[in-house]
């Protein structure tokens, strides 16, 4: 399967109005995060105490915070932290979940039971609790957040991959491969995992939205990226003290989190629909 | 005439899968509607039962007349009353006609209670009689069972009982035995045939199997790519088919004395509705095609729609 075919549903998802708006916002945030050093003349950690608490104006479009740092600049750099930490964590989680789920679902038996028990155990706790335990073990900071989010969503992807693999394992083409002499590794990597990928990637997309909230929550508690590195959660946390004096400090990062999560969900829905149409065309 | 289908054309969106289909069916008669998948036979069943709106289909020309009344002129509620009461439907998959969480007896009872206004006790007595007639052993025990507890053949017999319970005049059976085992298939087809004859009902039997047609039908309509290819009494059509497609369909089934290596099938495949060829739609696969076949549509005359019918065929 070539790249163009893989990306086709991602483009199809942009055709609906909701998909287009959501995709547009995500693109804007991602570009802003990547291009932050070139988009803004200010540094995210340059303090200017006399210029603190400015309302939005021509120099500072969204105003400044309690240390006089440009809010827009911090939002753009914050997007870097929030997006990259969430995406990398989910990436780790998906990869590990896919391998665990595939092995458990394909080989079954004692291994499957062991994986299922562990996964169900983490599944039965709220994600935030799992994440807090992980941060307590690893320690606060970017590494801790990555580990916390990665493990918090591991159960979800393992379960999904395992169920998919078990369904596809019964397909005749798998039996056909075996009748030709295919090894377990060949069947797993050539047939089972590629056919599991689309639903798992959609789930990963949607989970990234949740992960952004989780990352912001950990940041809000001061357990995420450590100052002066900005993250949306940490910005909101520092904004609570200035809620009435400068509501922008908490409002703008909050809006960013909300808009990004909603956009990811809307785009994910559009993606599901695009993939669904394709799979229906296939079975007919 | 119980059922008259006249020059029926059906469109779904941009495509016209049925064109100028016509046949009739009398009481006490079994008409086989035979064709490969994609020929439009199930669509015809939907048209006859007034269920075309389910798949966004529209009758664009022609009529379906049931007992003299044009189905297209009936309001939906009258159509609904007709279906079930006067027209029974038996589908390929019995589970689509059954409620998985209701006992068998209740599901058959409701048909005669609803359509004949019988009391609960009378309906149950009727159900038991029907099941026994359909040779279901221990009918009383089966009434207390749930659908999943029965075999496929048994379920299909229950669906036939449900169709018969309302004392319909017409039964439309769409591939009623395709999903079943051979010995069970034979039993069910025979039972259905017997009941239809005994009650003087009309049966429109939709199938892809010329063998089934030969064994139970009185007349047959051969459908190809949305048009009637040949129409007539079973005896004549099997003895002297006029349309090369009919001949080929019959020859697809090996029988006693078929020489090894003589089975060839029909070359090519049924065209999809978007790629219907001009002229006779069978001509690309036809060994007897002549230039005219790809130019003009052969009219249905003397029971066949062919420019170059087989020799010795009935006029």
């Amino acid at each position, binding site marked *: 399967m070539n790249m163009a075919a893989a990306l086709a549903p991602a483009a199809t998802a942009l055709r609906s109005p909701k998909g287009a708006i959501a995709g547009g916002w995500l693109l804007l945030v991602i570009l802003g995060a990547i291009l932050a050093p070139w988009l803004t003349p200010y540094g995210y950690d340059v303090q200017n105490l006399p210029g603190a608490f400015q309302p939005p104006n021509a120099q500072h479009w969204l105003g400044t915070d309690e240390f006089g740092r440009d809010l827009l600049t911090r939002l753009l750099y914050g997007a870097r932290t929030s997006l990259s930490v969430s995406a990398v964590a989910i990436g780790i989680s998906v990869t590990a979940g896919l391998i665990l789920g595939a092995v458990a679902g394909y080989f079954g038996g004692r291994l499957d039971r062991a994986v299922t028990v562990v996964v169900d155990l983490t599944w039965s706790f709220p994600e935030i609790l799992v994440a807090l335990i992980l941060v307590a073990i690893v320690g606060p900071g970017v590494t801790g957040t990555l580990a916390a989010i990665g493990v918090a969503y591991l159960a979800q992807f393992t379960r999904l991959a395992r169920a998919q693999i078990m369904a596809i394992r019964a*397909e005749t083409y798998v039996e056909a491969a075996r009748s030709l002499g295919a090894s377990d590794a060949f069947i797993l990597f050539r047939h089972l995992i590629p056919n599991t990928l689309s639903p798992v990637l959609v789930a990963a997309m949607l989970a990234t939205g949740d992960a952004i909230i989780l990352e912001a929550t950990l940041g809000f508690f001061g357990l995420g990226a450590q100052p002066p590195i900005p993250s949306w959660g940490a910005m909101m946390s520092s904004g609570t003290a200035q809620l009435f004096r400068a509501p922008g400090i908490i409002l703008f990062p909050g809006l960013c989190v909300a808009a990004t999560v909603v956009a990811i969900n809307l785009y994910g829905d559009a993606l599901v629909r695009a993939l669904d149409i394709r799979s229906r065309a296939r079975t007919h | 005439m119980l059922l008259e289908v006249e020059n029926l054309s059906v469109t779904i969106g941009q495509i016209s899968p049925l064109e100028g289909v016509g046949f009739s069916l009398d009481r006490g008669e079994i008409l086989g509607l035979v064709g490969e998948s994609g020929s439009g036979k199930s669509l015809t069943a939907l048209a006859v039962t007034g269920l075309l709106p389910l798949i966004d289909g529209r009758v664009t020309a022609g009529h379906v007349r049931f007992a003299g009344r044009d189905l297209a002129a009936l309001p939906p509620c009258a159509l609904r009353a007709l279906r079930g009461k006067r027209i029974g439907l038996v589908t390929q998959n019995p589970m689509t006609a059954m409620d998985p969480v209701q006992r068998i007896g209740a599901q058959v009872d409701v048909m005669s209670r609803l359509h004949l206004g019988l009391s609960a006790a009378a309906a149950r007595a009727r159900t038991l009689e029907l099941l026994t007639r359909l040779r279901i052993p221990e009918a009383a025990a089966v009434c207390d069972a749930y659908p999943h507890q029965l075999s496929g053949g048994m379920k299909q017999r229950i669906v036939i009982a449900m169709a018969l319970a309302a004392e319909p005049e017409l039964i439309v059976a769409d591939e009623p035995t395709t999903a079943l085992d051979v010995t069970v298939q034979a039993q069910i087809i025979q039972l259905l045939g017997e009941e239809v004859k005994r009650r003087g009902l009309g049966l429109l039997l939709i199938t892809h199997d010329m063998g089934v047609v030969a064994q139970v039908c009185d007349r047959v309509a051969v459908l190809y790519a949305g048009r009637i290819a040949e129409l007539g009494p079973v005896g004549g059509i099997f003895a002297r088919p006029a349309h090369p497609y009919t001949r080929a369909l019959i020859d697809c089934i090996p029988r006693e004395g078929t020489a090894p290596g003589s089975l060839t099938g029909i070359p090519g495949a049924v065209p999809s509705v978007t790629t219907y060829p001009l002229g006779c739609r069978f001509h690309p696969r036809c060994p007897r095609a002549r230039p005219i076949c790809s130019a003009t549509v052969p009219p249905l005359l003397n029971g066949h729609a062919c420019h170059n019918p087989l020799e010795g065929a009935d006029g």
Partner: protein
Amino acid sequence: MAEPLVTLRGLSRRFDTPAAFGRPARSMMAVRDVSLDILCGATIGVVGESGCGKSTLARLVLRLIEPTGGTVHFDGADITALSARAMRPLRQRMAMVFQDPYSSLDPRFRISDVLEEPFRVQGLPVPPGRITELLGLVGLSPAMAGNYPHQLSGGQRQRLGIARALALSPDFLVLDEPTASLDVSIQAQIIALLERLRAELGLTYLFISHDLGLVRYFCSSIVVMYLGSVVEVLADPALPPRHPYTSALMESSFIPDPAARRLLAPLTGEIPSPYNLPPGCAFATRCPAATDLCRHTAPTLISDTGGHALACHHPPEPAAGGATP
């Protein structure tokens, strides 16, 4: 011609369902004590209804599932004793064509990928031109090589399934109802293709089917199965059957000739549950000729010198054998 390519001896497979939710553990014999010689160049038809064990038998022969008893010899080697690794090179010589042409092809594989898969699996290079040659062999256009399965019709998909089975030039094909989900006109095409390939490539077939009429046309000998056991073996498909079940199968087939219309003596009685077979003959519950002997003692399969084998206490005399009109 006379050498057996595949030999089955006492082949059995039991499936166990563990106890769950208050239901006791139970087990069924899907295939019971099947012995068979498949000669080089023969086409053996295995016929029976759903649940008779014919598909399980097909998978046991290729060792896609493990037997619980008995052996399979392929060209002299006991393949039931081989490890999966040792089995792999032998798999080049045997292949299977599956019933469902839809689920037997990976939707993500292009047609060329499907045909290259056998070589990849075996770690062999794909000979240049082999894909085109295979497509031509089964009557598909080489121009289709880049297409995906969903762009093919059912008949074309089944041709592709056959081409995949032929990729490594096997000697032996197991055909598991290869035409059961196709239209009759396509079914006849596929059977004609299989006949041509048999003659051109000198293949040996094990043909699984529920259609006795088709098996009688296509096969050189017939094995009839009922609920896991072989009940009759006909060395010559033209011979009239003697087992009451085979006769019933024959009478149930719909002959496309209204002149040969007949009233069936439908089988009465229910098919017993495979988890709870009666002690005697499994067919006794539906057999018109069943006696107390049949209900209490299972008949054994006895062969005569002509290669005909029968498991029945009360077979009709050969002269009066149930020849159909």
